[in-house]
């Protein structure tokens, strides 16, 4: 706490940040931003376009979920710069969501089961 009083510019975070920026600042960053934008836009347009294609529902759902995860990857990695942070930090953020995948499996199964029982025992 004493540090705050000694340094009117607030916290010690700024210096780490500046160090980080000076070492890693990429002159092509704007290019990377626009590239990510075009990828996200293209995926979204593609999703809307195939929504009415004569494909089986299961296949469409799989495609949509995969593309959603691809979009999420580009937003997290490039817009939120997680790709440029330390790898260990990325794992700290991403790994907890593996449990969500397990949870999805459980709850969808449960939902289907309750629905099935509901239609048997009307």
């Amino acid at each position, binding site marked *: 706490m004493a540090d705050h009083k000694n340094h009117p510019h*607030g916290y010690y975070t700024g210096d780490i940040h500046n160090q980080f920026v000076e070492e890693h600042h990429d002159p092509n960053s704007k290019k990377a931003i626009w590239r990510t934008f075009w990828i996200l836009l293209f995926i979204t347009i593609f999703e809307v376009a195939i929504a009415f294609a004569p494909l089986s529902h299961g296949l469409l759902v799989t495609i949509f979920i995969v593309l959603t995860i691809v979009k999420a990857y580009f937003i997290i990695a490039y817009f939120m710069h997680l790709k440029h942070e330390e790898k260990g930090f990325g794992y700290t953020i991403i790994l907890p969501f593996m449990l969500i995948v397990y949870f999805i499996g459980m*709850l969808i199964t449960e*939902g289907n089961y309750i629905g099935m029982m509901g239609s048997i025992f009307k």
Partner: protein
Amino acid sequence: MAAEATVKQESHSASMWKGGKSPFNVSWGKMMMWFFLVSDAFTFSSLILAYGTMRHRFAEVWPKANDVFTHFPFYDGHIPLAYVALMTFILIMSSVTMVLAVDAGHRRDNKGVALWMILTIVGGFMFLGSQAWEWYHFIHGTPAGAYIMPNGDVYKVAENAYHLHHLNPPHDALVSPLHQVISDKAVIADIKSKAEHIHGANLTRNEYGNPLFADFFFFITGFHGFHVFSGVIINIIIFLNVLAGVYARRGHYEHIEKTGLYWHFVDLVWVFVFTFFYLV
């Protein structure tokens, strides 16, 4: 000047987290923003999971999104997905302007930061306006409406069941909750005499089918919209600070990065809402 900076940096680094160094070489503020976003992502995950569970629970009577969200401004017809794709585009665009503001901050370009921040705020307001428009149409419903039985079964008017249009149902036909076309005039008259004619959706009744669909729609898009709203407010505060030169004096623009993380997270959540509410 350089010597002073070195001294300052050393005295800082000794006290970082009181442990002498920052874990993962990331600043305290950014790390805590990430941890907040992880917990917020869990909240959204549980909401979308509850939605998925109930959707599978009521799979056969669940409304088809392409029958519900079919409006487009200044166009009097049926185009599913176009409007929500436009909303997605607006949000992605405002994410781009946000990340350009962060980029300008790295170059210590105060004017650039201000410009990209105001564009991000405009994008946020455009998205909120689009959402208000979407809610308005969902709440008011279609002119033809639907017939709701005392037991809660919703019989739609055939003209609103777009996914059955290839069957060419008669003009006055109804569609049962299980998506079957009812064209027998006696049955239609019987349903109409017992049922109540309703338009649109609220928390208890839904013209488009199962009321849970409307409940989840209001709750999840509302919760997301509230996040967008708070994001816009935070962006406005940061924008005013940029105009006042707060970050130029401070020497770094880390605040832009932190609000940027929040703003991209809002975009990220929308990507999932878009898939699970509108596409799948």
